[in-house]
């Protein structure tokens, strides 16, 4: 991925920042300048909560270039809580556990790597809203998936984690 292209799309990829139409109120993701419903101009930024559910999913066995090391991996259409569908990979989940309607939440992960000397491209993926990791906090009184407004910073995130956490906290 080219550096400038990476840079100009960080808002949507790190923070799920789309738009809200000032005319009809529809939340829009990905951002697209013209509202697809009322066709009026829509340039008011709107950051989505990152919560949603699986609308459909597929496990890819034959990956495109740049994604070989992830294969097989599961991709999904996620219906965001605010309405739009978003296309993304699922992570932190066994493909056999995925089902249509599964609640998921956005996390930031490595999307692809452009060779040995190229960029690591970070962006959104979605994981089950209820933590499935063994080391996840398990408190009956206060389940982690309820209290968690700031996604855990996954170990592989590195430099962008703080930025992501801040953006999510102010959403």
């Amino acid at each position, binding site marked *: *991925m080219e550096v400038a*292209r990476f840079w100009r*799309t960080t808002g949507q990829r790190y923070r799920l920042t789309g738009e809200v139409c000032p005319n009809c109120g529809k939340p829009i993701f*990905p951002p*697209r300048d013209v509202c*697809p419903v009322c066709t009026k101009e829509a340039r008011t930024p709107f950051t989505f909560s990152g919560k949603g559910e699986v*609308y*459909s*999913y*597929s*496990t*890819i*066995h*034959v*990956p*495109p*270039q*740049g*994604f*070989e090391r*992830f294969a097989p*991996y599961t*991709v*999904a*259409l996620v219906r965001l809580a605010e309405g*739009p*569908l*978003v*296309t*993304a*990979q699922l992570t932190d989940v066994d*493909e056999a556990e995925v089902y*249509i309607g599964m609640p998921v939440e956005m996390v930031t992960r490595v*999307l*692809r790597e452009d060779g040995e000397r190229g960029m690591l*491209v970070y*962006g959104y993926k979605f994981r089950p809203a209820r933590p499935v990791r063994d080391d996840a906090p398990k408190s009956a009184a206060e389940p982690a998936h309820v209290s968690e407004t700031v996604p855990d910073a996954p170990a592989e995130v590195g430099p962008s984690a703080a930025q992501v956490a801040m953006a999510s906290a102010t959403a």
Partner: protein
Amino acid sequence: MRDVSIIGIGQTPVGEHWDKSLRELGFQALHAAMNDSGVERVDALYVGNMLSGELTGQEHLGALIADFAGLRGIEAIKVEAACGSGAAALRVGYMAVASGLHDIVACVGVEKMTDQQSDTVTSALATAADAEYEALQGLSFVSINALLMRRYMHEYGYKKEDFANFAITAHANAMNNPYAMFHTPITREQFATAKPIADPINLLDSSPIADGAACVILAPTAIAKEFTGKPVRVRAMAIATDTLAIHDRRDPLYLEGGAISAQKAYAMANVGPSDIDLFEVHDAFTIMSALSLEAAGFAPRGQGVRLAMEGEIGLNGRIPITTMGGLKARGHPVGATGMYQIVEVVEQLREEAGANQVKNARLGMAQNIGGSGATVVTTILERL
């Protein structure tokens, strides 16, 4: 506007042409079509192609093929609309003749895919989708169709094996098409156990990567009989668009572009689905056949698969589809596919389809789809 007819057709076999380049394939189809129509020169050439830049490092195909064919000097351009490039090129040729700007026009669809490894081709095909919001997430073009198929099965209660007849019918019909890539019938069991590509889509839901070229020659209907005893009239033609990404659709399971272009074509031809004798669908994946049949009005929403399950898509069925093998078994050289569909409908309407002849075929339709429905070209042809 002038009435337009097809006065000649040509095609190369679909397959792995390691001995032929892109320009040679394009010329071979053009040469065959010019011979078929008896014309020695054309006024213009429109070349449908999707991936020459990505896979061959070659763009500028209009001038390239015109020069290679000995037609230097004529108007020639490339037309691109992903997997809908073939029929899009026909559309440009149709507009040129209908408008009166040109009299004799050649429309070629050509694609050269097998020089590259399959991961390169997989990435190239993903350029039909939204680069920043689908391809960047690691979605292959197959997986986008898989998302549609999974949701379709979920909403309408189908099982994977309910789609089998689309692939089985295509392979059976390809047996009698000398230009088809596969001459091997497949069974329900093979369909059920084929290698997964992007679950629930497996190898036998999918059309193969291939090389090929096809061509038609257009002329005003008023002079068509000077060239051929069997002109085929372009009764109607329409292109419609939809969002590139399926997540941007109002309803991902509804091919709005397919419905709009079919309705426009029906209105222009003043006919309806019940008047159509055969329908070449864009069966890049079995799910696309179902969605295309529904969008074009041959089945209600969620019932397209039922036509296959009940055997209504065979040569003697209610609506024969993929009569010469379709994308699945004739092969899918992406930018050429739309032109192969047109050539095959012409074969049916001229009664040259041999063992696969649909009886008394008078009106044939083709629907060529770019991406997962972002460009849809519907063409209705009529025997004169």
